[in-house]
């Protein structure tokens, strides 16, 4: 009943070229170490080399920690799914065995590796793979072979909008994050009695930037905000002065940025140069890149607000999150962050579904995933629980807002879990 590891791959005579270049590929993957008892093989696809190697490395720690939580007994982590039992009880205590594959951050490679995991490594399910573009192609392989794909962190709304049957996303997508930003602005505006209806968007001209700009336009209209400027640029730009001048001229109260790290640094510097700062600058990703962002801009990063799926501050408010963070810290020497927290939770949710399915058949697991019902106290993220809609998107997700204060990231919203008071409006440059 468990997926029995196939023997060593039989040598095949391939074209001379294929042989020369292909040899490295036939080596068994390193993660396959003999363990007693039945196992369930789960393929994990992350960028282990290339530009995003560091992200892949911490994802590896997170997913491995989650597998350990499933495989070993952690009574104090109850009611986290499968924490207090050894292995998967309904599969005779089978262990989760991870098979790692490197996407190199490249969509084509991601798909090729996913196919390899399914065809050659006979994995039962897939988890990954941080980037939306790569996840999109991995999803094609999953669809074709009928293997469930659990997506903890990739956040392009398109992934769940395309109607994949086998894709399930546990974390929020960019549209939900944008919605979250507006809820935050609603509450701040009410609380501080400050007129903040004028919004500007500064986004890179990629799918990521364009999607966020599109959602921002839609939500702003629905909620009665006015988008006064919307500027795109090609990354990396030699200068962002023209863009920010136009935005400044439009006089927004809040600027929403959809940028990655390099451009976030340039935005910070250009704002400082222009001696201008809106009431609030809310970034989606780049400003929350720990620790590179702050080491590049130093104290100039203060008062930027970014959306987050999770933040270390939450570990102080939530017992389970704190306990898992402690385990992670012991393993790696650093805290969980918004990606690793989602990755730990993602694999737990997948394991929970496999356990409930009770067999290793793809369709049964898919149905079990679709029927997932977890409550708010069973997760380590600020969610209302886990429940997938018809498109495979967890509809009970939540998030929070973090502000950089004195060179540290502090949770400032939702107000009931805030660890520091929001500074709003941000002080001008000459009074910092």
């Amino acid at each position, binding site marked *: 009943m468990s997926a029995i590891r196939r023997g060593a791959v039989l040598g095949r005579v391939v074209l001379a070229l294929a042989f020369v270049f292909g040899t490295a590929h036939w080596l068994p993957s390193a993660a396959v170490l003999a363990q007693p008892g039945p196992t369930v093989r789960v393929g994990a696809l992350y960028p282990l080399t290339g530009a995003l190697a560091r992200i892949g490395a911490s994802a590896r720690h997170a997913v491995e920690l989650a597998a350990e939580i499933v495989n070993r007994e952690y009574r104090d982590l109850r009611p986290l799914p499968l924490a207090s039992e050894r292995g998967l009880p309904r599969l005779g205590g089978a262990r989760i065995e991870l098979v790692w594959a490197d996407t190199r951050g490249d969509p084509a490679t991601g798909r090729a590796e996913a196919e390899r995991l399914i065809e050659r490594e006979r994995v039962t399910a897939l988890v990954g793979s941080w980037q939306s573009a790569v996840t999109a192609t991995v999803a094609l392989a999953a669809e074709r072979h009928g293997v469930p794909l659990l997506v903890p962190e990739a956040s392009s709304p398109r992934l769940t909008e395309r109607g994949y049957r086998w894709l399930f996303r546990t974390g929020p997508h960019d549209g939900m994050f944008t919605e979250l930003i507006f809820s935050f602005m609603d509450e701040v505006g009410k609380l501080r009695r400050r007129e903040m209806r004028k919004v500007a968007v500064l986004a890179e001209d990629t799918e990521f930037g364009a999607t966020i700009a599109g959602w921002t336009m839609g939500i702003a209209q629905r909620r009665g905000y006015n988008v006064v400027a919307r500027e795109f640029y090609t990354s*990396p730009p030699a200068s962002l002065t*023209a863009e920010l001048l136009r935005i400044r001229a439009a006089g927004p109260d809040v600027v929403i940025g959809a940028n990655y790290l390099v451009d976030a*640094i340039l935005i910070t510097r250009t704002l400082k140069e222009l001696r201008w700062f809106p009431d609030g600058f809310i970034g989606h990703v780049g400003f929350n890149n720990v620790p590179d962002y702050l080491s590049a801009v130093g104290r100039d990063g203060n008062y930027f607000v970014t959306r987050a799926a999770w933040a270390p501050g939450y570990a102080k408010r939530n017992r389970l999150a704190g306990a898992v963070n402690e385990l992670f810290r012991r393993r790696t020497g650093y805290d969980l962050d918004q990606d690793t927290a989602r990755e730990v939770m993602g694999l737990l949710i997948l394991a929970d579904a496999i356990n409930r399915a009770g067999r290793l058949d793809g369709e049964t697991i898919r149905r079990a995933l679709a029927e997932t019902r977890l409550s708010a106290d069973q997760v380590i993220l600020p969610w209302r629980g886990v429940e997938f809609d018809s498109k495979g998107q967890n509809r009970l997700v939540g998030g929070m807002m973090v502000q950089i204060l004195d060179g540290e990231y502090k949770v400032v919203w939702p107000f009931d879990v805030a660890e520091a008071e929001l500074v709003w409006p941000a002080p001008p440059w000459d009074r910092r």
Partner: protein
Amino acid sequence: MELVWHAAVSGAVLGLVYALVSLGLSLIWGVMDVVNLAHAEYLMLAMYATYWLWALARVDPFAAVPVVVPLFFGFGWLTYQLLVRRIVRAPVATQIFATFGLLFVLRYTAFAAFGPNVYGVWRLGEGTVSLLGVPVASSKILAGAASLGAFVGLAAFLRFTKTGKALQAAAQNREVALSLGIPVDRMYALSWGIGIGSVALAGALLIPFYQVSPTIGDAFLLVAFASVVLGGFGRVDGALVGGLCIGLLENLLGTLLSPTLKLLFVFAAFVLMLLLRPQGLLGEPGR
């Protein structure tokens, strides 16, 4: 109106930086008619050099100039001796491919050495200064001033020193220069030294306000070519005029019309200039 003025002033400062980046490209192009596709990679390497001096030894980027520029002068000289001298008289295609290969080697060596991460220098006491009523980062003003200084210095060198005159002679006619006893080979090597040294100067001055990664050359290569072609290739002052034009064009049209299309304006100007006036703004109509 204030917006236009602001865009113009910061565009001019940006243009001076572009001009400094393209100075070496223009010089090398003019002296030996070799187009160096790897030019912006030297910029990237100089930025790394400056960054590491700052990160490891806390050398301020401006203080690093006397170290970085001579280093890259030597680097340029060496590049000439090892590679370029073999292709000076080769067909255009060979020159293009040789420097194209060089681009790959330099870029991915940086990638192997420093990884894909982005590095920036965060200077304490970095301030904003008012220039003609427009706030501009003090490091940018310094970079602009240094750019102007470099152009004046180079012009003076070419006009008033014996070596400078010899360099010009070598540029105008190799055979005649040789017959006059000018060591053309040395002059070529010198122009590579100066060309790469000047782009290293640009790198050192850029790093306080611009971050470096292995692919950063992409942001500057075409702009540098556009500056050289716009101003008139083979003329040192052409790079200055071209750089300024590009900076102004990018910032003014970007601010007034659409920032997304600002590079499109630059490249369109570049292509139009190639087609309509290949000799550039300052150049004399050619043969």
